């Protein structure tokens, strides 16, 4: 019996009764009363800890990795959405351990915010890690994009057994990034040559051609490649074979992250991998909330697309056909969204010019409207209050398919509104 675990669990129950998500406060308290709790609990796991980090796509990728590992018969512990900070991990562990502090799992898969991951790996060195990308996001928090790459490198260096890197990210696949890694197995994933133009990088956006020197090609022991996308079918290449899978996931960046998940799971499971089971599991994965999920309101689809970075927004605009769909854009500038609005000017909105944008909402609705004005895109309505904007948007466009591009906290507010009309998972 562990007294700190019992105390922590009691606090968690109280916090939940008080209406919170039961995440931050109990995590804080268990860290204070039992600083060794997280390391001690995670050290029990026979397959160790996996860390997934990067600017974009952590949540959906983690969801995929968990499903793929489970398809191989592993019991997986993971941290839930919105708790990708060390304290959130501690709270999630607290909820899942039994009274003696034992975790019923074989492996932990954690999505961690870059800065918090650095703090985490100092306490618990991961066995495996996966790095998705370094994009212009939350630069107001970390300073500069190169500094963010350094944070990720710290995690890679702390990793003991194997690292997977996105070979299409010039900073991650650079010689500088990879040469410091001491884990024996470094692998990569990426998209094939002819898919490249569908995945513009921040650097290519303004014709920047000064990329850091790439890692020598023998750096990577193995590569998982996304070869083709055809509707909801994707073709991946690994183990000298092409594998075609039909996917529930939408959006080309989600499919790129599927290659990341495959590469990581292949690394973890090794030669014992059951490929057919893994691919079956992949085809069943649904998008994480707000990552291209569709909600039915009165029998008509409303698609929620989370946008956080210029490249993510550009990819979203490119991924989803604007024809016959009414568009709303919701932009907040709370801490979790990033305070700086500059990023909107690094996205081109010409693809929305023909149909226009129905509604712009959120705290920074007028920044978005201004951005659209300079791309000559008409806006029918600007309403900073999200509840009013959502009601009006649904009422005026009752029977057309609708799509809402939104920042993180705007998405939470929109989901609250939609949950009044239909069953929607609301995240506190």
């Amino acid at each position: 019996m562990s007294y700190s675990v019992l105390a922590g669990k009691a606090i968690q129950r109280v916090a939940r009764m008080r209406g919170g998500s039961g995440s931050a406060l109990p995590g804080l308290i268990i860290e204070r009363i039992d600083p060794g709790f997280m390391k001690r609990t995670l050290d029990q796991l026979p397959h160790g800890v996996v860390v997934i980090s990067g600017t974009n796509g952590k949540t959906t990728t983690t969801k995929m990795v968990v499903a793929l590992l489970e398809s191989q018969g592993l019991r997986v512990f993971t941290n839930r959405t919105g708790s990708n900070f060390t304290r959130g991990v501690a709270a999630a562990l607290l909820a899942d351990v039994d009274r003696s502090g034992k975790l019923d799992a074989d492996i932990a898969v954690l999505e961690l915010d870059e800065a918090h991951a650095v703090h985490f790996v100092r306490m618990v060195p991961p066995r495996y890690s996966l790095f998705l990308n370094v994009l212009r996001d939350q630069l107001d928090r970390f300073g500069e994009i190169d500094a963010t790459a350094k944070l990720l490198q710290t995690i890679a260096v702390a990793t003991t057994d194997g690292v997977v890197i996105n070979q299409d990210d010039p900073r991650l696949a650079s010689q500088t990034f990879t040469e410091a890694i001491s884990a024996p197995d470094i692998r990569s994933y990426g998209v094939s040559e002819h898919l490249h133009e569908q995945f513009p990088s921040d650097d290519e956006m303004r014709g920047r051609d000064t990329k850091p020197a790439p890692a020598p090609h023998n750096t990577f022991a193995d590569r998982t490649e996304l070869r083709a996308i055809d509707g909801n079918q994707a073709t991946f290449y690994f183990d000298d074979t092409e594998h075609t899978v039909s996917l529930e996931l939408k959006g080309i960046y989600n499919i790129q992250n599927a290659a990341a998940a495959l590469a990581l799971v292949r690394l973890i499971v090794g030669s014992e991998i059951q490929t057919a089971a893994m691919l079956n599991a992949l085809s069943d994965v649904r998008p994480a909330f707000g990552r291209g999920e569709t909600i039915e309101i009165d029998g008509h689809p409303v698609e929620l697309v989370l946008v956080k970075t210029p490249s993510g927004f550009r990819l979203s605009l490119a991924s989803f056909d604007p024809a016959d769909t009414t568009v709303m854009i919701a932009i907040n500038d709370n801490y979790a969204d990033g305070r700086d609005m500059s990023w909107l000017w690094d996205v081109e909105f010409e693809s929305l010019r023909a149909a226009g944008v129905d509604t712009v909402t959120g705290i920074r609705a007028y920044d978005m409207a201004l951005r659209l004005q300079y791309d000559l895109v008409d806006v029918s309505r600007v309403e900073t209050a999200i509840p009013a904007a959502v009601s009006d948007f649904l009422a005026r466009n009752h029977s057309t398919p609708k799509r809402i591009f939104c920042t993180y906290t705007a998405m939470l507010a929109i989901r609250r509104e939609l949950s009044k009309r239909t069953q929607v998972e609301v995240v506190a």
Partner: protein
Amino acid sequence: MSESPKTLHIVQLYPRDMNIYGDWGNTLTLLRRAEWHGYTVRVTDYNPGDTFPDDVDLVIGGGGQDSGQSKIHDDLMQLGDRLKNLADDDVPMLMICGMYQLFGHFFKTKDGDTMNGIGLFDIETHGSDQRLIGNIVTQSDTFGTIVGYENHSGLTYLGKHVQPLATIQRGAGNNGQDNTEGAVYRNVIGTYLHGSLLPKNPALADWLIEQSAMRRYGDFTPTVIDDRFAEHARAVAIKRPR
């Protein structure tokens, strides 16, 4: 009405390496507003090794990371006299953040390394451990309230031969100490503000266009532009947390 439309030629300095935090928004704003005011606009990208154009009406430069600054540094030093001549010939320019710093005498890092600038502005910049980040509101006699977002660790100090662009109402500005933000020399403006700067500060954008039109054609007749979105966006930005 003139027979052929009047053309204004904008040169973007180093868009490949010095382009961050929506610097494109500034060029786009100049491009659109000049068109709305009745001009035909040509935008030329100038990157290291390119031939600098002869007929320049407006020069714009953006921010960058340290790595971007070192990539363009040699080229900029060679171009320095040319830019200073254009400035003395009253060509309007707008330099944001990293290019603002390199238009000064030098940037000295906190480790003591010095990167020379072209000295167009009588300013010097010293690296620091703090990062000055957040929404910023400043006040200028010429342009009224200027709103933006700053994100820099260099502290810039003005010499005698340059005027501040504005005084701080909220935020840090040049150095967080003397209440000044940015610098002005003739028609050249340097500033730490992005956000992007010009879309939310149309008075500043129109002033740059006016200077270039007056210099090239001797007159400027503005059109009335619907700036209601900009006015609302400014009002919101002023009220947001740092």
